[in-house]
């Protein structure tokens, strides 16, 4: 309700480091947070309502986000005429086409990390300088969210033509709210206000400085010591409490469910996890309700949910969830069933190793909790925590684990794309549990092509039930929970369900009265 004030430099801390500047190939928030403000997207999550998983607005296009026409086979975007790149080149639909062509149809040898999200797209065309058309192979609810993904920085066609596709890895020329000033590797990235920014009156800030700080404690103390005003990824609950306790109303806390599912995967290739009874016992052993209550005090997880992001219309309701194994209201009953199943499968007192990733929050904390949960049905579990590279190697390449903690952490909330991790591993790029289940594949396909949301939702329930309960393919512990305590003088920034979203900073301002 306050009017934004112009001026000031926003300092924020970033916990991961920048690889290259080219978002089309990178995937870390470590480059999104500092680099995203230099670029614009075609469409983006509504900055005023980022917590809605379905509310997109135009950034470089005009008016509202266009709905699909031609039975969902055509999207026609009108491009703004008042946009200029930081180097002065005016932006046209050709630039956007070139951008999406790079992302979706990259030439040989050019890596594009998320082109699979656009499998429903056939081609892009530019009827005139300020119109861009996406022609679809088939209608898909997953397409628009994919376009709105924060990685889809719009580059200038001129840069791509003249300097090649690698140029953006080391150079920055966007249309975003800020222009690039300097990057001291390992230290900070600095940007200053872009005077010709296409959103009227914005940005409010004179500039920003994204300070690299890989240690959580440092990021926290930086905010406390006012060396930085905010951190965009999220703090553990205790850190929030410490800050609030120390600084009182100088701190504002924003919280949200996070579009990251913390999973645990049984290795179907290995005995006895090829036995559905054993797998079901695993999920039945886990008391998600109590976990939600207690773990949310020590880890960045909170909401109990199924395969779909809890805030999304496609997500299961509490009642629907309660019918899924592992989500039953009575934990005693669950555990009794788990023990029974184990006994039946001849796996009583089974000993195995829980593979985990060497990151504290939330992996190691939840892993430790899981072990205790398993112990309660008589399983003897030890933990094997590996540094990230070795962890990926073990899970993805070598498939060398009994049960592993895993995570599915997407940027834009796009359930239809996100749940692709549950289809057969020979089709899905990111299913590491190692099973083939053609029923799941069929359900997924139907769901993706269903144009009626209610129908989609119905199939999703079947899909979910099969994955988590009937076939007990892979499991979710809890959904992540994003906690962003920040200096109360930081205004205008709204928490989104992902730390990748809403990071263009054009709407952020600093309240001088509170500084």
């Amino acid at each position, binding site marked *: 309700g306050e009017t934004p004030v112009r001026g000031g430099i926003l300092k924020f801390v970033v916990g991961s480091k920048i690889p290259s500047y080219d978002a089309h190939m990178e995937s870390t928030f470590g480059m999104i947070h500092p680099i995203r403000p230099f670029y614009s997207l075609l469409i983006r999550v509504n900055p005023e309502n980022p917590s809605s998983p379905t509310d997109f607005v135009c950034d470089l296009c005009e008016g509202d986000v266009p709905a699909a026409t031609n039975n969902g086979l055509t999207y026609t975007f009108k491009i703004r005429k008042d946009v200029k790149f930081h180097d002065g080149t005016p932006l046209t639909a050709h630039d956007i086409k070139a951008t999406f062509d790079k992302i979706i149809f990259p030439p040989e040898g050019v890596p594009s990390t998320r082109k699979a999200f656009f499998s429903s797209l056939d081609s892009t065309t530019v009827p005139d300088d300020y119109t861009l058309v996406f022609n679809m192979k088939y209608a898909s609810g997953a397409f628009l969210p994919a376009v709105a993904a924060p990685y889809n920085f719009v580059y200038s066609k001129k840069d791509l033509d003249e300097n090649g596709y690698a140029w953006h890895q080391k150079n920055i020329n966007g249309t975003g709210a800020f222009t690039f000033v300097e990057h001291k590797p390992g230290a900070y990235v600095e940007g200053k206000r872009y005077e010709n920014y296409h959103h009227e009156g914005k940005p409010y800030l004179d500039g920003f400085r994204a300070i690299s700080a890989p*240690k*959580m*404690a440092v990021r926290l103390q930086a905010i406390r010591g006012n060396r930085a005003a905010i951190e965009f990824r999220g703090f*553990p609950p*205790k*850190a929030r*409490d*410490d800050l609030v*306790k*120390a600084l009182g109303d100088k701190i504002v806390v924003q919280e949200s469910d996070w579009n990251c599912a913390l999973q645990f995967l049984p290795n179907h290739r290995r005995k006895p996890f090829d036995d559905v009874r054993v797998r079901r016992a695993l999920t039945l052993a886990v008391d998600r309700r*109590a976990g939600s*209550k*207690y773990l949310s*005090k*020590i880890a960045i997880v909170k909401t109990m949910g199924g395969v779909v992001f809890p805030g999304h219309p496609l997500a299961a309701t509490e009642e629907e969830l309660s019918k899924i194994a592992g989500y039953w209201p009575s934990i005693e009953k669950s555990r009794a069933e788990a023990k029974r199943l184990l006994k039946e499968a001849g796996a009583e007192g089974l000993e195995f190793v829980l593979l*985990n990733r*060497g*990151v*504290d929050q939330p992996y*190691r*904390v939840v*892993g*430790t*909790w899981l*072990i*205790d949960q398993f*112990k309660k049905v008589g399983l003897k579990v*030890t*933990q*094997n*925590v*590996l*540094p990230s*590279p*070795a962890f990926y190697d073990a899970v993805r390449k070598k498939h060398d684990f009994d049960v592993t903690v895993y995570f599915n952490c997407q940027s834009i909330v796009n359930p239809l794309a996100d749940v692709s991790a549950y289809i057969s591993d020979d089709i899905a790029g990111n299913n590491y549990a190692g099973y083939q289940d053609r029923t799941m594949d069929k359900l997924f396909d139907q769901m993706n092509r269903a144009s009626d949301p209610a129908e989609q939702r119905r199939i999703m329930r079947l899909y979910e039930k099969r994955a988590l309960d009937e076939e007990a393919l892979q499991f979710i512990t809890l959904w992540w929970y994003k906690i962003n305590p920040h200096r109360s003088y930081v205004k205008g920034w709204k928490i989104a369900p992902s730390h990748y979203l809403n990071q263009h900073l054009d709407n952020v301002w600093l309240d001088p009265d509170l500084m």
Partner: protein
Amino acid sequence: MTVSDVRIDPDAERAVERTPRPAALLGLIARYPLGAAGAFVVLVMIFAAVFAEAIAPYDPEDNAFEYMFTPPGAQFWLGTDDFGRDILSRIIHGARTALFVGFVAAVIGATGGLVLGVASAYFGGWFDLIIQRVMDVFMAFPLIILALAVVAVLGPGIDKVIIAITIPFIPQCARVVRSSALAIREMPYVDAARACGFSHARIILRHMVPNVMAPYLIMITAFVGQAILLEAVLAFLGLGVQEPTAAWGLMLKSGAEEYAESAPWIPIFPGLAISLAVFGFNLFGDALRDALDPKLRAQ
């Protein structure tokens, strides 16, 4: 004149007098008060490690969320951690991990160094030169990458941690032992052994190795402390022993990061345990050095 005429000296029969035990102990304590304090700490630690099950009031691994973050008090003397586990019990059980890692790494490292150092000094020449160069490489090599590689290649686990810690100990000890052994090699008794035609192995094992025991023992005690500390650092970097095993470095890792302020007992007590243990071993090692090294002895 015949042999029987050679007079046997009258003093010969005088028995060697050795101070009786308890008096000797008190004497040692008076002479090395810091060392005695160190020895006490070490003994307490060993006691805790051996009888952990009997002493620890709770299971060190059981989650009890109802009690999470309980401050130190009557029920939990040192409080509980984020999982509601009793910190005292975890520290007691942690002594076992620490001592195990410490002793095994120290003994293997120091013994490896002993053998290499003595052999290197005894043979000299090219053998010495090559060993020295290889040692140089390991001395100069950053520990963390060595540890990381060992853990990554072999997988984590206490045995791998021990290997990672042991490797840098070997050259450290070899260096020290070599310099003592070089001096010993010049000793007339080694010459005497050579003049008697003893084999290399015999000269090394019987005549040189026992005489570099002092630096060896000193290195061992120093290494135990270092190993405990290194284990903690590796745990801090996420490379050591893993949850839910009770280990000090691990307790500190999460504690120091997140709960230093709101629940200070979580990081403080394991931190103290580590410091105290390393402190104890160092004090003990220092006293041992003083006692074994006549040059430093306060007369």
